[in-house]
């Protein structure tokens, strides 16, 4: 198996690692970089637990070959809080009990961030479709949707 030296930015930090050419970005993040926030729920892009932002765009990191990350800017769930403050989504999820087991939570937070970055004022339907690629089996989605709505309100308030 060939291996590729990959240089990229993860959560603001320049990093480099050696990855097997057939391995996924998810495996590289978890294995080479020790960032285990993104989870593998399916490995086929159907559950969204491995969601990360690559150059600002939402991706399933299980569907990206690790060498593709060369030169890119990656954000994982470990990188969305400020040094001292949780991201408003993280805070809203805690207060709104939007997680039960928590395995889908990293991916849901990233997908919700991608949504709110692009659309600060989404409707309930827009939130539901934006999160349709993120399976959650515990919550029935209700409290997730409400917490994204709450975070959107707070982010708009902060932006004013």
């Amino acid at each position, binding site marked *: *198996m*060939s291996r*590729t030296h990959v240089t990229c930015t993860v959560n603001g930090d320049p990093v480099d690692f050696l990855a097997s*050419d*057939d391995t*996924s970005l998810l495996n590289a993040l978890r294995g080479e970089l020790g960032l285990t926030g993104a989870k593998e729920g399916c*490995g*086929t*892009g*159907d559950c*969204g637990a491995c*969601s990360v932002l*690559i150059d600002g*765009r*939402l*991706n*399933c990191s*299980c*569907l*990206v*070959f690790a*060498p*593709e990350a*060369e030169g890119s800017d990656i954000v994982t769930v470990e990188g969305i809080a400020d040094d001292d403050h949780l991201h408003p989504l993280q805070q809203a999820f805690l207060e709104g009990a939007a997680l039960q087991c928590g395995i889908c939570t990293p991916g849901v937070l990233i*997908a919700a961030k*991608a*949504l709110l970055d692009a659309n600060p004022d989404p409707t309930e339907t827009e939130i539901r*479709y*934006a999160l*349709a*690629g*993120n399976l959650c089996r515990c919550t029935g989605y209700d409290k997730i949707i409400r917490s994204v709505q709450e975070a959107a309100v707070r982010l708009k308030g902060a932006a004013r």
Partner: protein
Amino acid sequence: MRYAAPTTVDEARSLLAEHPGSRVFAGATDLIPQIRAGRPAPPVLVDLKRIDQLMTVLHEDGQWRIGAATPTSNLTRNRDFTAMFPGLSEAVGLIGSDQIQNRSSLGGNLANASPAADSVPAMIANAVQAVIASGDGTRTVPVAEIATGPGQTSLADGEFIVEFTVADPPSNTSDAYLRMIPRTEMDIAIVGAAVRLTVDGDIVTDATVVLGAVAPTAVTVPEAGAALVGAAIDAGSIDGSAMDTLADAASAACDPIDDKRGTVAYRRQVAGVMARRAAAIAVGRAQNGV
């Protein structure tokens, strides 16, 4: 297995020529699951996304040129494209989740040759052409001629799609795409239907109906299109008997299979429903200049 990221079409051509059995990819949204499922791994994975031409969307001289590896979300976010081809934009917007649409491409959706590929009926309805890197040059063929069966294409070894071209639609022309899936998202189409039509006042003057997921490849249904041509439009609705003929023709054109996703009878029946509903949407758009 080795990963390669050529930056020119010629470089990609050479890699494929030197390493028979290698695969080009853009989003890999089908390739990675296939490899996981035990499909033999190609010697070289040729990533097409570093080639500018394949990642570019251009609108000039009355036609669109869409790089074959461009993420479909670039199309759905392109207001001009979506205004001109609302149905095609709808179709590419249905290929998986937001995560998938940031990876999936027209080239991949077509070359993967799934009978259920959402973009393909909509591309065929709009007479989209595929520009293929072939030998030392390129050849251009209608999209309808690429897929020949499930997982089978007319692309020769070493050939790959570079870009798609599509002419701006004539005035009073629009399109729509609908599909049937059991959930609201994240499924493979059981039936897909694309309709493009042109109106002149309260008369349909031209119509193309293309179905997906009901035969080994997407199928154009001339009888369904013909059923609409000349049909009267009353208060935004196409004449009911023409729509019935359209639906019957669509159902009759189906050559589906029973599988885990749907039955023959279901696909046949719902193909007519989807075609009729897509036509109803398309006519509204064509009349209102949307």
